[in-house]
């Protein structure tokens, strides 16, 4: 069964969103994860970190006061 994993990094400051994302990428069995952040800095950092881990940023959904970042295994 494949379920999408989610990391909720809202309200967290550097380096925690990246730390949580990388730890999830390393642990997860699913091919896709969603990271929710609430500011542009975390969005940029999480996207950069995901790419550096060999994953791919599928898309970034901008919602009210938050971004949903979808990351996929390459």
């Amino acid at each position, binding site marked *: 069964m494949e379920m999408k994993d989610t990391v909720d990094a809202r*309200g*967290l400051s550097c380096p925690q969103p990246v730390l949580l994302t*990388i730890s999830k990428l390393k642990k997860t069995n699913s091919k896709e994860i969603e990271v929710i952040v609430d500011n*542009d800095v975390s969005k940029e950092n999480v996207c950069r970190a995901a790419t*550096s881990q060999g994953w791919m940023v599928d898309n970034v959904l901008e919602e009210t006061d938050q971004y949903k970042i979808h990351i996929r295994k390459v």
Partner: protein
Amino acid sequence: MLKRDNFLASSRGIVIVGVAIGILAALLQKFGNPGNMGICVACFERDIAGAIGMHRADVVQYLRPEIIGFGLGAFISALLFREFKPRGGSTPLARFILGMIAMIGALVFLGCPWRAILRLAGGDGNALFGVAGLAVGVGIGTLFFRAGYTLGRSEKQRIGAGIIIPIVLLGFLALRLVFPQVEGNPKSGILFYSVKGPGSQHAALLISLVIGAVVGILAQRSRFCTMGALRDLILFRHLHLFSGFVALLLGAFVVNLIVGQFHPGFVGQPVAHTQSFWNFSGMVVAGLAFALAGGCPGRQIFMSGEGDGDAGVFVLGMIAGAAVSHNFGLASSPAGIGPYGAYAVAFGLLGCLLIGFTHMDRIKS
């Protein structure tokens, strides 16, 4: 409202910002700021604490316009780019204390991370120990983060909370304009002005303010952070912010060479002492405090300009720390560490460790 790809936060962008800040900082020295102190967030906040009489060390009293420019530049930039987001509530009291400790540690070394880089760029070998200490302090901080340290989530707040620091900075600017410096006079209205020492050395008001604002805008866009540079390198092996750190060093170094501000050596360096152990350990304490609070002193001002109340509390903590530092003889001078500087380092380290160990999140995501 502007919203497009953020070039300054790209790999090339952060290097350009680093070089630009390095050049501007070295030029500020040329324009009158103290040696290797074109920009020093800790020193400048300490000077502000002196200017408003929170300490009476008469050589370090000047309401530094660069700090005002940093915060207001970041504020304007955040507004323009729709990044002004009032937020707060992530253990503010711990952040206040971390701010105090960071300042106390930085004043044992005689400079924040920004000045540590500028001191290196000016040839001050003592800064090698400071930078090494900074790396060790930040390194200890990363161990805490790996172990689950967190000050908790911040929450969205009202606009009113987000504009407090920008308004305070506008208030400082108003004071500076209403009570301008009177040549040779230690006081103007309610403001103190150094007539000798580093506090008496400064670029003209408009130059300091404009360069401060430019740096504020560049840093807000690029997320430039001198502590984050080392943290991300140690924690993630990410070179992104570190490349900005190195770029600042190179930018300042080249300008220093061109204008004759590069004087390699250890002895007789401007606003510096040669007690290597204390240069190192002061910055271990400061580095750890910056790491636990999530940003270098510059970044904390830029974030407070973006509406981050927690960063604002840290900045106020630093100003309070400067007052304590000079009132209690914790701060160093070119002669060496202050009479109680060694105790300050020990208790500062203890304070950081206490905050670190008491903010571990047991539920790991």
